């Protein structure tokens, strides 16, 4: 009986593994196609029957992708607005999460409902009027706007921080308060270091979000100041306006690289932090 059960368990695990590996294979296909395409020549792109793997991998495509559009310049733009957004976003969310987890104020739950209900506002409903208003007062084309955009934090991250702060015993703060430390001292000296995991999650999210965002840069920034998202959305074209898919894929690999590096360097804490803190209750 026990034998039979352990055999069945092993069979179940094997089936699960096979299904998972099929999933992984399917998930990898688009990425493989991206990398393979980035190594083809222009002729190989349009050959029929199609060539799966290029005969001579064109590593030069990666050089072309970098030099053709002054990639470095737009990379700096992307980095600038992403950092401008990420830092205030971490603090804004963290402050708000702390406020909602710790203070006993009558109107607190009402305000928290407002925070959560802002999730229902489509991004464009606010961004398009904001764009019209901001260009009217002549502030369009300023990268420092992202410092302000970040301040509000996001409902999800506020919720996440609130969950994390709620798990910290109040006694930690009380003893410090008896010693006469002020609210902000307590916050930065005691509470902030205790929610490191949430800070990492928030940082990755905010960075990824602003790095990927297309709508705000395309509206608020012009010409030389646009980000990689805006630049690469058009794709690479030659003088006759043919779209150069192979160069484009190489460019996209550069564009996604920072996200890939950050994600894989921090993924263990990131996913665990997401699962443990944010989603209970």
């Amino acid at each position, binding site marked *: 009986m026990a034998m039979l059960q352990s055999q069945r368990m092993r069979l179940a695990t094997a089936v699960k593994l096979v299904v998972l590996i099929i999933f992984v294979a399917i998930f990898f296909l688009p990425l*493989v196609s991206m990398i393979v395409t980035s190594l083809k020549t222009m002729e190989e792109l349009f050959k029929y029957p199609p060539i799966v793997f290029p005969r001579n991998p064109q590593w030069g495509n990666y050089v072309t992708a970098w030099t053709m559009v002054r990639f470095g310049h737009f990379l700096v733009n992307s980095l600038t607005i992403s950092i401008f957004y990420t830092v205030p976003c971490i603090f804004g969310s963290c402050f708000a999460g702390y406020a909602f987890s710790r203070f006993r104020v009558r109107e607190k739950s009402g305000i928290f409902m407002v925070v959560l209900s802002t999730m229902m506002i489509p991004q464009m409903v606010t961004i398009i009027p904001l764009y019209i208003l901001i260009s009217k007062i002549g502030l369009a084309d300023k990268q420092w706007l992202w410092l302000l955009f970040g301040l509000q934090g996001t409902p999800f991250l506020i919720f996440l921080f609130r969950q994390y702060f709620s798990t910290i015993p109040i006694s930690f703060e009380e003893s410090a308060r008896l010693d006469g430390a002020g609210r902000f001292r307590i916050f930065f000296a005691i509470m902030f270091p205790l929610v490191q995991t949430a800070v990492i999650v928030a940082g990755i999210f905010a960075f990824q979000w602003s790095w990927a965002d297309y709508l705000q840069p395309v509206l608020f920034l012009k010409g030389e100041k646009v980000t990689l998202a805006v630049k690469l*959305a058009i794709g690479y074209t030659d003088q006759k306006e043919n779209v150069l898919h192979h160069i484009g*894929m190489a460019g996209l690999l550069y564009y996604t690289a920072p996200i890939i590096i950050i994600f894989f360097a921090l993924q263990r804490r990131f996913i665990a932090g997401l*699962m443990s803190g944010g989603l209970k209750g």
Partner: protein
Amino acid sequence: MGRIKAENRRSFYIFLAPWIAGFLAFQLAPIGWGLLTSLTNRMAFSIKWKFIGLKNYESVLTNPDVLYAFMITFVYALLHTSLAILTGLVIALLLERKVPGRGVFRTILYFPYMLPLVAVGWIFKIFLDRDTGFLNEVLVRLGLLKEAVPWLQKYPLQSILALALWQSGWSLVIFLGGLATVPNELYEAATIDGAGYGRRLRHITLPLLSPFIFFQFVASMIYAMQTFIQPYLMNPKSHRGENLFLETPPRETFFVMAQAYQQVIEKHRFAYGISMLWTLFAVVLIITVIFIRLGGFVVYTEVEEKR
């Protein structure tokens, strides 16, 4: 006592100040201004304009193209949401317990969600291409297809859905978090009572997971109703030159957001475009309220035990 209370409230608002400032400046003000503008006949360069009441909304709601866009946006959001939840749920259940390499699978399957939409749109445009696409090549070699299919031209909506499925990692993480909250004793007790996998799934896992599924459903619907850039990126007309918005996507994927963007930014019809956005906002609100009402019936709660 009163002093402590006052200090408490003051500190609360100091910590909340960044959020309040952002909310007023970047959400409430533009929303209010947008609502007022949608009641006028204002264009980008108009010097004189006047209030015309609900006329814009009237023309939004009587324009068959716009109504079609609302319909197709809703259909897309529903498909996107259901399929992403299903995929996330299946993978989460596969990863539920003792599977070797659990962490690695989790990371790999979550990963596409992290990639920027602009990149993903292009990756799928190439991936699904009739001539250079990998998908056709694989399917033909496996004998599942006789000849290459122009996916983007023939199935634009499904192509965007494929992209959404690829990025279903978010629901995977939500469900893994949900599964972690299910007490192990319940499974053990059920197993001792002789319940097989199917019955455990139906009577323990799914009921306890239902709040997470429900939350994910609502959040994903709101998100998918706003789909905007994918149809432009994956536009099956191959050439588009320097302007992404020069060529409109096919009817099947010309969603509400894309139409509103075109009205405001490309055609400079501020008031009309914003009234389209507001109509979508209203639809999102109505859908959310309906779902939350319905949610009371489908979500399992432990009210009886708590009492």
